[in-house]
């Protein structure tokens, strides 16, 4: 079943056609990768899907609902959560607190309840904390719950960011270059983690440059070049695709 459907989406920045007439589907329960050379429009596409940018034309349908006009926070509350290419953790907050922020859409106490410290908020706080700790344990970073998030090594910060996204219990997780800046061992672990997340029933769409990771974990790969889709296929077929090879390695004449 299709969870996300991108239909003929275009986005122009001044004279640059960043994304043009792009269509693809993401099936529920799958891992799909977006690859392409630098400047191919991958991050722009991510921003369009997650509501950080509005497309000039086209449709984006998530879970059967048109989300093109929705703001990023609305989209998140409908179950699509993203991470960032440059890690965006909340400074001055512990790992646990960072993940607790991710429980926002699953809790409800507002300004008044917070100011009056109403008893129902205590229970809610406790549930938020328990669920967040559970996620940290699942990701194997429970030991760092009380460390300041931005003081952790880079690789762990990435995992905290994913933990924060998972705390929203998303149906679709968008990962923007999850292996960027990670060493080979960490990249391998990231691959296992992404497969584990899929195992939890979360669909994953990722942008990634690390081909070993992409080829190993994805069910399907979409290749972009200059804002256009040039191929969409299973990893093994993509590796043999002449057009893809030409885009990545150049013509051999």
């Amino acid at each position: 079943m299709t969870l996300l459907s991108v239909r003929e989406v275009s986005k122009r920045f001044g004279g640059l056609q960043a994304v043009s007439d792009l269509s693809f589907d993401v099936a529920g329960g799958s891992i799909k990768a977006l690859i392409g050379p630098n400047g191919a429009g991958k991050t722009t596409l991510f921003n369009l899907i997650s509501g950080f940018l509005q497309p000039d034309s086209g449709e984006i349908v998530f879970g059967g609902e048109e989300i093109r006009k929705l703001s990023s926070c609305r989209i998140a509350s409908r179950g699509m959560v993203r991470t960032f290419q440059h890690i965006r953790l909340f400074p001055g907050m512990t790992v646990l607190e960072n993940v607790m922020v991710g429980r926002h859409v699953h809790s409800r106490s507002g300004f008044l309840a917070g100011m009056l410290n109403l008893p129902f908020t205590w229970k809610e706080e406790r549930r938020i904390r328990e669920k967040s700790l559970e996620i940290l344990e699942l990701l194997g970073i429970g030991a760092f719950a009380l460390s300041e998030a931005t003081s952790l090594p880079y690789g762990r910060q990435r995992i905290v960011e994913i933990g924060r996204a998972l705390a929203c219990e998303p149906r679709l997780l968008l990962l923007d270059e999850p292996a960027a800046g990670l060493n080979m061992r960490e990249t391998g672990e990231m691959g296992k983690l992404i497969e584990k997340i899929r195992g939890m029933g979360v669909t994953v769409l990722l942008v990634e440059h690390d081909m070993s990771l992409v080829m190993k974990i994805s069910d399907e790969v979409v290749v972009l070049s200059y804002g256009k889709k040039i191929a969409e296929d299973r990893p093994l077929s993509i590796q043999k695709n002449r057009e893809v090879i030409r885009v990545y390695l150049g013509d051999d004449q």
Partner: protein
Amino acid sequence: MVRRYSAVFAFALFLVAIQLATLFAGAGYYLTQLTMTAYYSLLTIGLCMLIGYAGQISLGHAGFFAIGGYVSAFLTTCDLTPHKGSALVSLLSKSGVLVFRPGLYGGTLLTVHPWPACVVAILLTVVIAYLVGGPVLKLRGHYLAMATLGFGIIILRIVLGTESLGAADGISDVPGFPLFPGLAISGDSSLRVSNYYMAWGLVILGMVFLLNLVHSRVGRALAAVHGAEDAASAVGIPTARYKLHTFVLSAVFASLAGVLLTHYNGGIGPSEASVMKSVRYVAIVAAGGMANLWGALMMSLVLNYLSLRGYFGTFDDAVFGIILLLIMLFAPDGLLRRHILADLGRMFSRNAAGEEGS
């Protein structure tokens, strides 16, 4: 939570100690400035919530203070006796919204009772804060500062240019505010002690509300918005709405402070709406350490009191300008840092670790 409330309790004891000290020193008149300081502190902690926790600057909060003060002053001094015949006035009069009171120059005045006047002032503030905050909070950094500064200037010019608000003279002869039967907020020297406790009691109540908020789901969301707005929005926090709500909340604190101080002083003048007042409030929040409610409260207590006692003389505004300048240059985290002990501890432990050769 225990720690949160024990700090509040300790502060309450501190306030009692101050009152007792003035009692034994026979210097009860100090309480007048301390009471005024309390109302300014109410504004300061609200502004601290906006600047320190939601990360949004406002250089226009004197404007909200003035809206509260002026609306309340105008309604409680505007004599409606000539309109006694009109249906609206007699209806309001029957429903208890209007009261007769003796005028300063003899005769009786028919004016709005302070309670409904206060309600109108606060409601008007909420409406204006939503109208101004909606578009203005889309701006960031310098642009937000300039837009709120502009708002403050507009309020000041309106106040100065409106004859019925007393123009440059302001409004005087504002009656006391009967909070409970037998307890009124007024500058009457026989009520000095009770007013001191009422004012600071209100500050403590405001403090408890804001401390609760900081430690709630909303407080965490605000910290997230402050720290990384796009990431906060990516996990479903409606960042614009949270910023706006905090802006309105801090405006209500400012407006309530304006209402009550006006009744306490028996009047309000245009200097309360001046830009330098707004700068002063920001300077106090900055000196307190931005995201530090206790720091803001302590700095407000000390600086407002010194200012009201006239220690800064004619250089009053200059002193606050210099404070803001020095804080920004040399101590952007404020003078009263929450983590100062933790930082010292970390510094020593780092040195110790260095000696071990790791």
